């Protein structure tokens, strides 16, 4: 069953169209990589899927028990966050915010959920530490724990390994793969790291040429050769 379907989707801003007539669907348990050159509209597409911007034309349908706000999101880090005084615990718990509704404080179940997700990310020892003093990889794991507090179903990751060294990058991919395979969480990942493609089941390539299909189809297509320039050899 399709969890998220994009039909004839056109996206843009200020009257300028970035994405034209895009069609794809994401099923429960999929691991989808969205690749494409800079400026091809990857981030715009992600914002649309998150409901932060409205499409110019076409629709994004969600189904399979997925409601608005049921999407977990791992954003790229902003300058504000780099000097934000917040503990790991505070950041993680803030992922439960949408569960609160108008209730001002977090309840016990939400605190347990945050605790559980910290453990899942191997962060329980860092709980009291200051977020801005952590390493890049640790910060990403905190944000991942926060995203998991917001959803059990589907995670959108925006360049999750940007700025991480190769070892931490590999750990991060492994962690994401585990979430996908063990916990059955649907993964949609934006990346321009071609290494990431080998973890995915499906690929969406956007830009001048569009492609949507399985990984093996993608690797045989001309479009991947143009993009990967032979870097991919797994």
């Amino acid at each position, binding site marked *: 069953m399709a969890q998220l379907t994009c039909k004839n989707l056109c996206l843009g801003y200020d009257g300028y169209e970035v994405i034209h007539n895009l069609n794809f669907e994401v099923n429960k348990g999929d691991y989808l990589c969205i690749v494409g050159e800079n400026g091809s509209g990857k981030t715009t597409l992600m914002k649309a899927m998150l409901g*932060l911007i409205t499409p110019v034309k076409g629709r994004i349908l969600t189904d399979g028990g997925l409601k608005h706000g049921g999407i977990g999101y791992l954003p790229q880090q902003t300058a504000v966050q780099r000097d934000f005084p917040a503990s790991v615990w505070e950041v993680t718990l803030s992922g439960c915010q949408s569960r609160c509704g108008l209730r001002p404080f977090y309840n016990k179940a939400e605190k347990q959920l945050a605790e559980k997700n910290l453990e899942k990310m191997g962060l329980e020892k860092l709980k009291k530490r200051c977020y801005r003093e952590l390493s890049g990889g640790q910060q990403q794991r905190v944000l991942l724990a926060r995203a998991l507090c917001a959803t059990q179903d589907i995670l959108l990751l925006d360049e999750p390994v940007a700025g991480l060294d190769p070892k931490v990058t590999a750990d991060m991919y492994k962690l994401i793969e585990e979430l996908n395979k063990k916990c059955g969480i649907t993964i949609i990942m934006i990346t321009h790291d071609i290494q990431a493609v080998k973890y995915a089941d499906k690929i969406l390539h956007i830009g001048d040429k569009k492609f949507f299909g399985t990984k093996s189809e993608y690797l045989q297509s001309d479009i991947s050769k143009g993009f990967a320039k032979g870097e991919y050899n797994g």
Partner: protein
Amino acid sequence: MADIIDKIVLYLQYPFVRYAVIVGVLIALCSSLLGVTLVLKRFSFIGDGLSHVAFGAIAITSVLKLTNDMPFVLVVTVICAVLLLRTGQNTRIKGDASIAMISVGALAVGYLIMNIFSTSSNLSGDVCSTLFGSTSILTLTSDEVIMSVILCAVVVAVFIMFYNKIFSVTFDENFAQATGTRAKLYNLLIAVIIAVIIVLAMNLVGSLLISALVIFPALSAMRVFKSFKSVTVCSAVLSVFCALLGILISVVFSTPVGSTIVAVDIVVFVIFSVAGKLSVKFM
């Protein structure tokens, strides 16, 4: 030392000094609460901009000869705050430029109006006291005190009720919105609260020094503390302490209230900066 304490005890017997202390402490408490949020959202100067708007509004009320100017000033400032925070993103004139524009614009128009229509014999004195709040806190009427106390109580209550939401929206607005928190609504709430605080704080430090009251305690606390909660609590405590000390110093040595409080804030900031550096070195 005993002299000074005697002097303070003596002054505290006057109701207007007691009013000043009560209102000063409450305003300091309120203004520090949102300081962390504003500093982190890169809105440090919104206090300055809004206070100049309030100055312009006060000029209009004095021309219209309204006896109680607070409601009018409050409404105008809230509207401007909403406009300013709303145009934060995606506009032609960016946040800092629009704050600067509204800020100096309101200041100029306010002074112009006061100058043209003024009925007061001591115009520059009036302007000076609005800008630097030099005496107005010592001339509060009991109605104004009651109004300030109520507004402060509301601000503190709203802040505590929405503390977690304010944290989410400040830390990561996109994430909050994407996961179903109504980020725009809470931004609006922050704008309204900050406008109320500005109007209140005009009495204490005047419109030129308000930013100091909002950002100094937050910045000091951020030097030393590492979690949002501890920073917020610390900046509230610092702000109250500085305001109290500043008011007492100004009463005893008859210095201007607003600038004395800000001077104390600056000293505390320097102490905390050094403490922050040392704690990094030795821990």
